[in-house]
Structures are given as structure tokens and as C-alpha cells.
């Protein structure tokens, strides 16, 4: 019952819509579309840049990161001091024995005892 009522209303509504005016396409409109396309469709004068050759980021980044970590580890351990040239670790440090390496604390004690002027 409700369905037939709905279909009746649909039919009446359809009839109502049929009363609306239908536009007519202006004469030559399709031709004007093609004219606009002919004007815009010309090949571009812009020369495209060739894309940059890219390298795999991981292939470069991973060894670099590993070598950095190894450098930090060896540097912190002091292992590298035996291999690095004097110019890097300093000539004084290279030729000095442990006793020559003053921390400066002794000087403070001497100063407090009045031995330094």
C-alpha cells in the first residue's frame, strides 16, 4: 500500500519535473570547445629537465653511520692514539710519559702551600 503510494508520488513528481524547461545547446558550442582545445593543445616550448641521478640513500648512509660509530668507539677507548700521527694527538702528548702529564691539581696544592708566586 505504502509502495504504491510512493510510486504514485514518484510519477506525479516526474510529471512535475517534465514541466521544467530544457536548455538548448548554443549553436557551434562543440566547435568552440575544439577551437579552445586547438589553442591550448599546442606542444609546450618548455624543455623538461632530466631528473637527477639519485643514489640509494641506505647504500651511502649505512657505511657512513657505521664508520662514525666505530670512530667514536675507538676514540673513546683511546685505541686510536697509538695509530694517529703526532700532528693529530699533539707532540707533547706523544712524547710524554704519564708522570709528565700534569692534571694541574698538584699546582693548586703547591699554590695553597705558598710555594708558587
Amino acid at each position, binding site marked *: 500500500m505504502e509502495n504504491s503510494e510512493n510510486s504514485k508520488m514518484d510519477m506525479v*513528481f516526474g510529471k512535475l519535473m517534465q514541466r521544467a524547461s530544457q536548455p538548448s*545547446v548554443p549553436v557551434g558550442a562543440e566547435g568552440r570547445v575544439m577551437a579552445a582545445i*586547438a589553442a591550448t593543445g599546442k606542444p609546450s616550448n618548455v624543455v623538461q629537465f632530466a631528473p637527477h641521478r639519485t643514489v640509494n640513500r641506505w647504500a651511502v648512509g649505512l657505511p657512513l653511520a657505521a664508520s662514525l660509530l666505530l670512530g667514536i668507539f675507538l676514540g673513546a677507548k683511546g685505541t686510536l692514539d697509538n695509530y694517529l700521527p703526532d700532528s693529530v694527538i699533539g707532540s707533547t702528548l706523544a712524547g710524554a710519559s704519564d708522570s709528565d702529564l700534569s692534571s694541574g691539581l698538584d699546582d693548586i696544592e703547591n699554590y695553597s702551600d705558598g710555594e708558587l708566586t
Partner: protein
Amino acid sequence: MTRLQTTSDAELLVASARRDEASFAELVQRYYKPVYRMVWRMMNGNAETEDVAQEAFIRLWANPAQIREAKALKGWLMRVASNLAIDRLRRKPLADIETIGEIADPQQETKSGNDAKAASRRVDQAIAALPERQKLALTLVYFEGMSNIAAASVMEISVDAIESLLARGRRTLKETLADDWRGLLEELGYR
């Protein structure tokens, strides 16, 4: 009948992607009218209708390969054209646009009698006053004969949502055109 007239949309799209203007002209021939009618309805017969319809085809020409399935072509054109029409209306509300005379004030017509032309203009005026999404839904379904599913696809909404838009649009029109509605019921033998 030319060879292009019997060529499928899919083949015409492929040829258009190779910049074959004759193939594209055939697509324009096939789909310009429904696109124009829909835009005309959305823009209430505004003079910019042709520009908007044309823009939709220019966008298709810019990249025909973006249509992955040829059967989606009409829906794609309708979607692009309706979006362009809505954008144009939002930028420049209808009150500011010089509308063409096809959708005129129905009051003038009713004074000279309740003839078919006056009824037609009353319906046009009532449709023109609908919110844009209700108007688009009604246009696609009632004027372009699309199924609810196809219209929902054009509007990128669910079928439930389009049914809701249609119901609201019908209700508004029925209220606005109450006299015509009653007249039609009597004409058709309903009370």
C-alpha cells in the same frame, strides 16, 4: 556514419591521449549536451554555462589517460563540470551574475494565465532556489536519467546520502509548487 562514430569511448580516449583531435571531437560530440544541460541547470541558465562546460572538456583533453575505465567517462565529466559550476557560483554568487532570460520571474507569466510556459517557469524558478547539492542530485536523476548509484558516484557520496538529498529536494519542490502539485494530481485522476 563515419568510422569514429562507431569507435568505442575507450579507443577514443586512447587516441585522444595521443593528441588525436578528431577522436577527441567525437567524444565532445557524444558528451557535450548532457554536460551542458547539467551545468545550465546548476547555474540557473547563467551566461557562463558554456565556459564552464568547455572547461570540463579542456581538463579532459589535458590528460585523457586519467580516465582508467571508459565507462566512467560520463560520470567523470559530470563530476568535473558540476564542481566547476559550484566553484564558479561560490566565487560569484548568482545575485551578482547577469542571468539570461530563460529562467524569468514566474509572477509575470501567471498574470497572463496559468499556461504551460508559466508552469514551466515556476518549476525552473523552484529548482533554481534549491540548495546546490539537492539541485545537483535532482538534475542528475530526473533530468539526466541517471540511476541513484551513478548519481552518487558523480557526487562522490553514498547511495543513502543521495536518496536523502533527493527526498529533501522533492519535499521542498512539492511545498514550493503546491498549486501545480494539486493540479497535477487532479489531471492524473488522483485526489
